[in-house]
């Protein structure tokens, strides 16, 4: 067994592109679900709308890169607004149903034959990240310590991605200890009480939905640029559910919860997956093939998460006293 490969891939997963993308998606979910109690099950669509906004502007219409970023961001805000207007006055579970349906609609439009000229069907869009890599300040080569390292392209994506994670965390930290954040947390507890105290609950929920969408959509940009392509099925419902898993793993309503959660989630997936496939190819495990390792690693990680919820329901950063309150 090649332990060095397992170690290297695992360490790289802790800070890798997937971790950044999922951390951003989960930071957004944490604003909506963790702090405001909004069950947005369409987070994947926010990433998709941003990624496609950029890709379509640059590769389909041949317009400048920065315009693509602006259009991506603007589309996310509009999307959040459209989603929020009919649903935020309803009970929380309706928002969940509408958002998951809306996310699927968005994905199916992206992959539809009718819009193949614009969105590129199931192949998606590529060739839009040129400007981004032209701005790369790192000269070509491998960067890293010892066996751990990234190419200059990945490094550039990671530096920018972690910068976005940092900025988002800072913004969330500042907001959540302000009176604005207090209103959100109060809405999570009981929106009628907040209404009776003279706060416009609808407006705050809308702000939370948009803010969470915008933070999540940074993940969509990072994904699109890191892989220099967007495909519709990347933005499926699993992405949203992983983001929720990460939020709960890290501890809901904690600033750094989603970041650590994303790191642990990907470390576990990569560690379990690579260890299993190494063990299979080295002949230690005989009852499964290397192609079966993929699904099995999800089973094992899922089992681990169930155990976590049983023994530490508040997540890693969570406060046990808060969970105890729910049982009253």
């Amino acid at each position: 067994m090649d332990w060095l490969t397992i170690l290297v891939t695992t360490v790289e997963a802790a800070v890798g592109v997937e971790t950044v993308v999922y951390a951003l998606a989960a930071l957004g979910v944490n604003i909506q679900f963790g702090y405001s109690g909004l069950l947005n099950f369409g987070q994947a669509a926010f990433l998709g709308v941003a990624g496609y906004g950029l890709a379509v502007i640059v590769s389909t219409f041949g317009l400048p890169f920065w315009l693509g970023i602006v259009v991506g961001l603007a589309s996310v805000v509009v999307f959040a607004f459209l989603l929020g207007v009919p649903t935020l006055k309803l009970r929380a579970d309706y928002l969940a149903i509408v958002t998951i349906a809306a996310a699927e609609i968005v994905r199916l439009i992206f992959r539809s034959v009718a819009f193949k000229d614009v969105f590129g069907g199931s192949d998606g869009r590529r060739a839009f990240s040129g400007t981004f890599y032209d701005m790369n300040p790192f000269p070509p080569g491998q960067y890293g310590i010892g066996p751990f390292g990234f190419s200059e392209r990945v490094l550039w994506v990671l530096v920018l991605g972690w910068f976005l994670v940092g900025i988002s965390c800072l913004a969330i930290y500042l907001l959540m200890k302000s009176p604005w954040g207090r209103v959100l947390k109060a809405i999570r507890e009981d929106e009628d009480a907040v209404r009776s105290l003279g706060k416009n609950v609808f407006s705050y929920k809308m702000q939370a939905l948009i803010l969470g969408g915008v933070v999540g959509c940074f993940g969509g940009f990072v994904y699109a640029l890191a892989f220099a392509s967007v495909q519709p099925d990347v933005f499926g419902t699993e992405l949203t559910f992983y983001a929720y898993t990460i939020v709960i793993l890290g501890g809901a309503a904690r600033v750094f919860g989603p970041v650590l959660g994303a790191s642990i989630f990907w470390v576990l997936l990569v560690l379990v997956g690579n260890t299993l496939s190494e063990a299979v190819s080295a002949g230690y495990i005989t009852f499964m093939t290397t192609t079966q390792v993929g699904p099995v690693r999800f089973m094992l990680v899922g089992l681990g998460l169930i155990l976590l919820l049983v023994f530490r329901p508040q997540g890693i950063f969570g406060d046990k006293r808060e969970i105890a309150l729910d049982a009253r």
Partner: protein
Amino acid sequence: MHAEPIGFKAKAQAAFAGLESEPGVRKPDPILVVDKVVRRFGGLTAVDVDHVEIQRGSITALIGPNGAGKTTFFNQLTGFDTADAGEWTFNGARLNGVPAHKVARRGMVRTFQLTKALSKLTVLENMRLGAQGQKGENFFRAFVQSIWRGQEDAITERAEQLLERFKLDKKRDDFAGSLSGGQRKLLEMARALMVEPELVMLDEPMAGVNPALTQSLLGHVKDLRDQGMTVLFVEHDMDMVRDISDWVIVMAQGAVIAEGPPDTIMSDSRVIDAYLGAHHDAPLSQEEAELQLQAAEAELEEEAGIEHAEPTEPNEPAEPAEPAAASEEKKEASA
């Protein structure tokens, strides 16, 4: 009740002197005027109030049997539910169709029958939330602490004073969810005061509160009036209604059926009918209770007579006879 400074109560009650005990009677200085409010749920008319006025600076009780539409009426007035028809004015400004949060901003704040403490916020945070016009509640200004810090300190100071008054100051850093039922009621009332309301609407403030806390809650409600606020509250506990209210409005089947001072309203025939229609265990007035007692005694004497001839269980026949006799007496009393 006895410790209360007599001045405030007498002053509040003086405003009601000489008013007729008729539903919709005009008050000298109404803060809230309600006209023809109707709320239907399908075929059921939950609220159909023709005209009602709430006197400024008084404690008005809203009573009525279960299902009378008291809470629904509250919900209409405070914007938590949309009335099918009708209009009402608060301080002369029209309030129908105004959303709940704007109703609160105008100075009409309510509490809830099922207490809504914000469990995962601390007691102090609950209090701070009540303050109005907070600069830090704007998304962009929230980022810059220096903009809202000063205001936050002032709010905190006011919150701490209120917590002290409500004897919750030792709990200030505990989660609101860890408080007892009675403490939550206190917190909810204190939080409503952070809004600096003119009219406080309490929906069953005593429900689920242990008797030891009841007196303290009663004192706080009286305090509100003594500080110049108007109180409208829904309550089932007649002792409490008699104790603290200056005026009582009675609802039944969605409509206001009677109004009057607390001492006499309970002997009003309409009120008795409304209560006895649904409940035989409604409290009785002094004369009624006496009449009932006399009837029961008379019956017992009669039983004693029969007993000599035909020995049976002494109390058994008396019991089924009693409710019939009681309701007869009630009709006499109401006539």
